[in-house]
């Protein structure tokens, strides 16, 4: 009522001010609130938060929708790794996660322990998954993720540069590998680069050999306290550090990323790099004239591959469209779904009813990868994977610079694990 006691000009000014202010407030509230909608009639909509990009998943989703016309997939795409993990984390916490999403090494503990993902053990497609794929996403006998592919990591060699020093057969032990590097260096060819922005594939493979010696129980023993990083890692790290002490690999790799190393290889500036099967397509596209071959990482007396099971598909435990979501995940494991996925990614798929056609350069690793004979510590660690991976990466960068020793690196990881378990 007080408005009517003001003069007309003041009143109109006040009214318009109020209207503008309220309007602006509403705009702000609307902008902050966001909105969501769902539905459609006659069809069931399954939401899917994809790890792979549109180019990969679009044909797969189209194939599913064609085979299941009553189900529509509403896909959104994340940016691996941290962007995807943090977005999924927020959505799960707020109860707005999609029906189907990705479970991966970086979040599997939180997803499985927190009851966010549905048990897939009794799904018919579970029997079609590779043993390594099932093992990776199984906890307490329950399967929580369905992975269709794995990747292998080793030494990618430029055959033409190796031929310049008369080498046509791959080294089968570590001493021969160092000797090959020395020979290349003497010929004026940079022998080997490996990025230091993570645990390198060569070290992972050397640790894999150690894991084999312990019947695949190395990490289980470290984490239950019956062994330690000092007992199991010091040897492989000492072997690996010979790359730098012998001059086979430049200490400058401490500041290099995978992309920088790959670019050097594509330009023909380095004879061998440590990388994974995922990099092959990009390298071939950038440098089609290179003759390439993947070599297993030579250990002291045997060779091995680094590698891991790829991220798997999981169903939201709180999904209201469980039946349709199961159909979608089932299709993703089917030979039709895997064929479309493999065509888009050229990855080493591992489902039992589909044999992928792969690039010849991957032939050396295909059997080992499909049978799960590979190792990657950060995937194998049962808990605290992210923290230990960060710590190991930083310690190894210090080691490359010559500022610490293999035994100190291993001891530091033991101390880190102890503090985390605290």
């Amino acid at each position, binding site marked *: 009522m*007080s408005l009517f006691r*003001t003069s007309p000009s*003041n009143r109109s*000014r*006040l009214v318009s*001010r*109020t209207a*503008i*202010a*309220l309007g*602006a*407030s509403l*705009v*702000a*509230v609307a902008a*902050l609130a966001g909105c969501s909608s769902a539905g459609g009639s006659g069809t069931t909509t399954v939401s899917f938060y994809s790890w792979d990009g549109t180019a990969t998943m679009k044909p797969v989703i189209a194939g599913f929708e064609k085979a299941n016309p009553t189900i529509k997939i509403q896909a959104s795409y994340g940016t691996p790794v*941290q962007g995807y*993990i*943090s977005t999924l*984390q*927020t959505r*799960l*916490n707020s109860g707005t996660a999609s029906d189907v999403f990705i479970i991966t090494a*970086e*979040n599997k503990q*939180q*997803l499985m322990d*927190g009851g*966010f993902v549905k048990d897939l053990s009794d799904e018919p497609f579970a029997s079609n998954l590779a043993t390594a794929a099932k093992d990776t996403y199984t906890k307490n006998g329950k399967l929580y993720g369905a992975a269709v592919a794995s990747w292998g990591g080793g030494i990618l060699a430029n055959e033409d540069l190796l031929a310049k020093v008369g080498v046509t057969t791959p080294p089968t032990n570590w001493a021969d590998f160092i000797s090959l590097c020395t020979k290349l260096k003497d010929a004026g060819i940079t022998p080997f680069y490996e990025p*230091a*922005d993570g645990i390198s594939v060569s070290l992972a493979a050397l640790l894999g050999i150690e894991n084999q010696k312990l019947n695949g129980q190395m990490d289980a023993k470290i984490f239950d306290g019956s062994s330690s990083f000092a007992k199991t890692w010091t040897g492989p790290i000492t072997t690996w550090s010979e790359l730098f002490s012998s001059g086979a690999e*430049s*200490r*400058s*790799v*401490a*500041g*290099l*990323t995978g992309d*920088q190393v790959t670019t*050097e290889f594509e330009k023909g*500036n380095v004879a061998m790099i440590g990388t994974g099967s995922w990099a092959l397509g990009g390298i071939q596209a950038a440098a089609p004239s290179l003759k390439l071959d993947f070599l297993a990482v030579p250990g002291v007396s045997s060779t091995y591959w680094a590698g891991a099971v790829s991220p798997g598909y999981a169903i939201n435990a709180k999904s209201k469209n469980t039946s349709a979501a199961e159909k979608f995940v089932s299709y993703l494991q089917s030979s039709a779904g895997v064929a479309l996925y493999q065509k888009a990614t050229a990855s080493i798929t591992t489902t039992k009813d589909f044999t992928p056609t792969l690039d010849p350069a991957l032939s050396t690793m295909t059997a080992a990868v499909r049978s799960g004979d590979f190792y990657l510590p950060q995937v194998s660690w049962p808990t*605290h994977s*992210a*923290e230990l991976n*960060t*710590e190991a*990466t*930083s*310690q190894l*960068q*210090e080691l*490359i*610079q010559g*500022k610490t020793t293999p035994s100190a690196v291993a001891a530091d990881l033991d101390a880190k694990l102890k*503090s985390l378990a605290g």
Partner: protein
Amino acid sequence: MAFETVAAMPQSRLALRRPQRGRLRRWREEAGASLFLVPVLIVFVVLFAIPMSQSVYYSFTNFNGYSNDFANVGLRNYALIFTDPTLASALGFTITYAIALTVLVTLFAIPLALILNRKFFGRNFVRSVYFFPAIPSVAILGLVWGFILNPLGDGVLNTVIHALTGLGPVPWLADSTLAQLSTIAVAVWTLTGWHALLYLAYLQSIPSDFLEAATIDGASRLQIFRFITLPLLTPAMTVSWLLLMTNGLKVYDLPITLTRGGPGFATTTITQAIIQDGIASAAVGQASALAVLFLLVVGIVVLAQLGLSRLLERKYT
């Protein structure tokens, strides 16, 4: 009609009503104006006050970002911060970075502003050139400088050094000390032009009478700078130092794109550690404790720096 009513009132009542009406009108106008603050207030509350309060709350819990089933852990998260060598290293580099950035940018920006304040051919173009590094995203600059400072022999800077001196590649981003220096150098390069223009704006507001009078009195250029220009620039220094110090303490984008926090933990910053703990390690409680503690540290440092700036302003202006 209203006029007649008022005119008929006794003088004492009229005297009472006038200030009341005046106050009421002022209150109404102020209330109307205050409504304009509502949108900003909503944004402040939703995007700052609530998340900040949540962070304080989470800092006393073992919240992992996924499940709302978490427990109170008291001061355990705060205790962990003081026993983690990684965080000590991150704090050390962050403070070094902020102080070095503030000092070096000031040392370069003031002389640059003095030069840009003179009349010479192409002055506006030169001003634009120095201002340019402040335009692109720092993340993009980090990637570009990563290419320039590539530690391999075919890195841009290493190629130039080799061509001029014949020296082998310098491990700019592959050696802890060099990586720290490189990060600071790139940040100084990025910000010097922007802050020089800030000083330039203040320089142009100095009355020419002061300078002319000093010149007539026989003051040298150095004396004019020391006793007139520099004291009159202290308000600009307050603004510049505040921006440099707060942005320096909160830095994330440049180190993460240039060095990814390495080698080792050499260029890891506190904000990077907060994000690493909160997202990758799913330790939101611990990350929140670090964020709260860091907010306090930034607050104390900024208050101390503001106090110092005010002291200088009072002394010299």
